[in-house]
């Protein structure tokens, strides 16, 4: 029994940390404090995913939540003016919603514990034998795994069982980038120097250059490893894409990578190729095969790998541009 309690302590500390950081990320004195808190929040959330046994998510969160979001916030922090004296909400306006939160949590907790509609009272039950009752979605996934063409269930869900979601999600990335392009209207190209603050600051120090040269290949190797391994173990296109994007960001910041100009066909191709290939596969399966996104069983593995490789490329370039893209990248 005492052992149980000891096992529970890390969870409690993580919960405490995460609550403090959530609060600080919104209500810290200065914007910069809030942003730093938010990056710390992402880091601790990655640890929580680890505690909850979700390696794919821990990898994604470590790369995206703690890494790229951090760069993104820093990028914003250098551009925005100091926070004006905001109208402080009165205490009542501040406290009333808080009271509401406490009540809502209490209600939710009482429901959670009384009739346990969500079945979470015992930890990690071994799933019941399939076939006794109607199989749940995760049972179906495990049963269908042999036909999926990959060995890792999460990858199978992402790129086979629910491939349509993933395809649409690649479009979400593209759209965010298209939206970003609107922020530097081309009609104002004359004022671009003063309008679009540049990413690159002063000449980087030699130490930073050397360190970037060392770091970027490591990131790329790790990204490639996660991609290659994603078929059979935690990892996959998104984690790999995020790591590659981090590599590109580092190189770009150090001035070692030229601008990813929108006018270059290669860049646009790299951005589009993931979604385009995915759509093409879908259309081909519709025309020649058994139906929309119905991979032939024999080629499923190869198709998924191909889609993953190109999706990784697209994700990497798109994320890079989303994080540090600027006038020079997006409109020249």
């Amino acid at each position, binding site marked *: 029994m005492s052992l149980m309690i000891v096992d529970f302590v890390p969870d409690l500390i993580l919960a405490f940390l995460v609550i403090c950081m959530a609060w600080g990320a919104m209500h810290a004195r200065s914007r910069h404090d809030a942003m730093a808190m938010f990056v710390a929040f992402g880091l601790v959330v990655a640890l929580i995913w680890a505690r909850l046994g979700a390696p794919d998510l821990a990898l994604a969160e470590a790369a995206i939540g703690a890494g790229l979001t951090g760069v993104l916030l820093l990028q914003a922090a250098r551009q925005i003016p100091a926070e004006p004296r905001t109208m402080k909400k009165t205490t009542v306006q501040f406290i009333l919603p808080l009271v509401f939160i406490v009540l809502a949590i209490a209600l939710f907790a009482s429901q959670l514990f009384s009739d346990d509609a969500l079945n979470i009272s015992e930890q990690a039950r071994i799933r019941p034998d399939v076939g006794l009752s109607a199989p749940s979605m995760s049972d179906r996934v495990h049963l269908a795994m042999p036909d999926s063409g990959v060995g890792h269930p999460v990858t199978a869900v992402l790129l086979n069982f629910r491939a349509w979601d993933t395809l649409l999600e690649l479009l979400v990335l593209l759209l965010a980038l298209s939206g970003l392009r609107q922020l530097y209207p081309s009609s104002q190209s004359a004022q671009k120097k003063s309008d679009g603050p540049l990413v690159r600051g002063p000449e980087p*120090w030699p*130490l*930073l250059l050397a*360190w970037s040269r*060392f770091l970027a290949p490591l990131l790329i190797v790790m990204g490639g490893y996660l991609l290659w391994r994603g078929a059979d173990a935690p990892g996959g296109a998104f984690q790999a894409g995020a790591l590659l994007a981090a590599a590109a960001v580092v190189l770009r910041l150090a001035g070692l990578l030229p601008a990813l100009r929108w006018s270059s066909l290669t860049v646009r191709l790299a951005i589009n190729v993931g979604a385009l290939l995915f759509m093409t596969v879908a259309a081909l399966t519709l025309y020649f095969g058994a139906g929309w996104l119905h991979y032939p069983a024999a080629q499923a593995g190869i198709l998924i790998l191909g889609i993953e490789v190109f999706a990784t490329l697209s994700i990497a370039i798109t994320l890079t541009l989303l994080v540090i893209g600027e006038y020079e990248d997006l409109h020249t």
Partner: protein
Amino acid sequence: MSLLLDSLAWLLMIFGLLFFITGALGLIRFPDIYSRLHAVTKTDTLGLGLLAAGLAIKSESVSTALLLLFIWLLVLASGAVSCQLLARYSLESDPAATGISEHIPGESDDR
């Protein structure tokens, strides 16, 4: 695993933990950024090294030990570089700080 190795591993890990605690204390208690840099980048890196060494012994596998070593080296290098970069950054953004010791940042804290 022999008892000797196991206790050695635990000893290393406990030492590592002690270094972590020291680093945390230093981060809180030290008066200015330059001394805090020591606390975090040196002490914690050492703590992580000891911990990783202990874990490597416990894992009883060469590949795991190598991976742990690699992670530690990475953190070591990253710590050293970021210490340098941050110190320079602080110096550059703080033209008044020609000498380090007289500087008391706590005074400008009340905003």
